[in-house]
């Protein structure tokens, strides 16, 4: 199941670092990136995050796949901005032989700059969140959220959701095997019918499973409050490191 970030993380100090400190750093940096008025700072953050991910042993291919879509969007926004907004024309593409206005494309200077800013912002912000995702196992993350006073109901739903996502993927695979084993998917029409049965069955099973989970859990003392992973005491050292880091970044941000 290579869908989720945490399956790649290796033993690395950043992974073991207190999740609350990590969250604080990421949120602070995110705010800085978003409110920054230039291009350099976000790019600097993006470069840092990239290096960190590589150091954590995330395969480049995975990293690239994860980045691909935001990166592409950034390019689109850039194009949108520089071709379609702005006053100040930088240059114009047009087919050399014709002065036919429909075939011209204008690049605006102010639009380009605007676009670069947004693209930079996206890159910086995305890298931060991706690095956080790779460096934080899901359960840790939940524990961190609960420390930040995110309502318990929300966290519980998130844990259930996470579990059921995997259940769906597994179930889909299981049912698919079961169908193949009885000659499902042999041919177009049969394939479609098999697929219909599969999705229907997935949903019904999922719903049944919620009932069973609830039974199994109440049976073992669950009364609506999930016991969460123990919170380890805040360590001064880790928070100090985080603070220093935030201040340092803040200083660069000011420049």
């Amino acid at each position, binding site marked *: 199941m290579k869908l989720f970030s945490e399956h790649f993380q290796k033993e690395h100090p950043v992974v073991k670092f207190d999740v609350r400190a990590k969250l604080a750093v990421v949120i602070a940096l995110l705010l800085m990136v978003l409110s920054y008025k230039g291009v350099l700072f976000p790019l600097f953050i993006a470069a840092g995050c990239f290096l960190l991910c590589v150091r954590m042993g995330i395969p480049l291919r995975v990293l690239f796949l994860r980045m691909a879509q935001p990166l592409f969007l950034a390019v689109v926004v850039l194009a949108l901005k520089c071709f379609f907004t702005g006053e100040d024309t930088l240059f114009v593409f047009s087919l050399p032989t014709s002065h036919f206005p429909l075939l011209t494309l204008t690049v605006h200077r102010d639009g380009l700059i605007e676009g670069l800013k947004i693209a930079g912002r996206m890159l910086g912000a995305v890298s931060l969140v991706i690095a956080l995702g790779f460096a934080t196992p899901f*359960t840790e993350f939940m524990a961190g959220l609960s420390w930040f006073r995110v309502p318990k109901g929300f966290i519980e739903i998130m844990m259930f959701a996470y*579990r059921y996502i*995997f259940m769906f993927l*597994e179930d889909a695979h299981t049912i698919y095997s079961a169908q193949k084993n009885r000659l499902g998917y042999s041919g177009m029409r049969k394939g479609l019918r098999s697929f219909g049965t599969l999705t229907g069955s997935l949903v019904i099973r999922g719903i049944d499973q919620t009932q*069973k*989970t609830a*039974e*199994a*859990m*109440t*049976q*073992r*003392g*669950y*009364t609506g409050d999930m*016991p969460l992973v*123990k919170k380890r005491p805040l360590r001064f050292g880790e928070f100090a490191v985080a603070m220093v880091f935030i201040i340092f970044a803040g200083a660069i941000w000011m420049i």
Partner: protein
Amino acid sequence: MLSVEKLYYRYADGTDALSDINLDVKKGQFIGLLGANGSGKTTLLRTMDGLLKGFEGRVVLDGTDIRKLTPKQIYKKMGLVFQNPDDQLFAPTLFEDVAFGPLNMGFDDNEVKQRVAAALKEVELEGLEKKSVHNLSFGQRKRACIAGLLAMGHEMLLLDEPTAGLDPMGEYRMMKLLQRLNRENGVTIVMATHSVDLVPVFLDELYILSKGRITRGGTPEEVFNAPEDMANIKLRLPHIAELIYRLKHEDKIKFDRIPLTIGEARREILKTFENEKY
């Protein structure tokens, strides 16, 4: 400790799963439920555990109608091991699953860890703590379910075929473990099972379910004393009993009684040998 009076249960699709069930489980007993597939064992255990509502009749736990108890009050006293382990396991890893009960009971981290370790040792799953529960083999998952309840230390355990899917040695050990819990810790146990051969060795009392009704009850000896109509209730004699029964009735060798266990059979055979000699 737990008694069931005039219990009827009908599923939403109209299946009458239980009819007129009366049962009285006393503290410290080790009771078995036997019966054909679809005879209602699982349904009975689930109503006894308070999971199925909407039955007719009464289920009384320590003097109080179970419908008047909160889930918390019920599950402090007793727990049920489900028939299908996949219905019971829900946490990501084996450790987390087994720890769920103790955590809910409010123990501190150390106590939880100890309890989990002890429970996993009992079911011989040490070393797999970090494994995802869904990556365990079927028998391992069955064991994991049992560990999840052992870690809570209930007064009463209901088990739905705890040994199904276990390897032969595991089956025997599991029964030994339950026997120890029953004898040494005084845990009251009710289990559904299909293992006729193990029953007489371990159980105090048996109830036979057939089409939602209890048709017989008593000690293993009492229940297995009428081998002729076993087939109606889809049961058979334990292999040992079958052997002696055949020797007695088909080969006309004299036996005073039909033994149910290996130990008894040895004694009977030796006795017959002695008698024949002289």
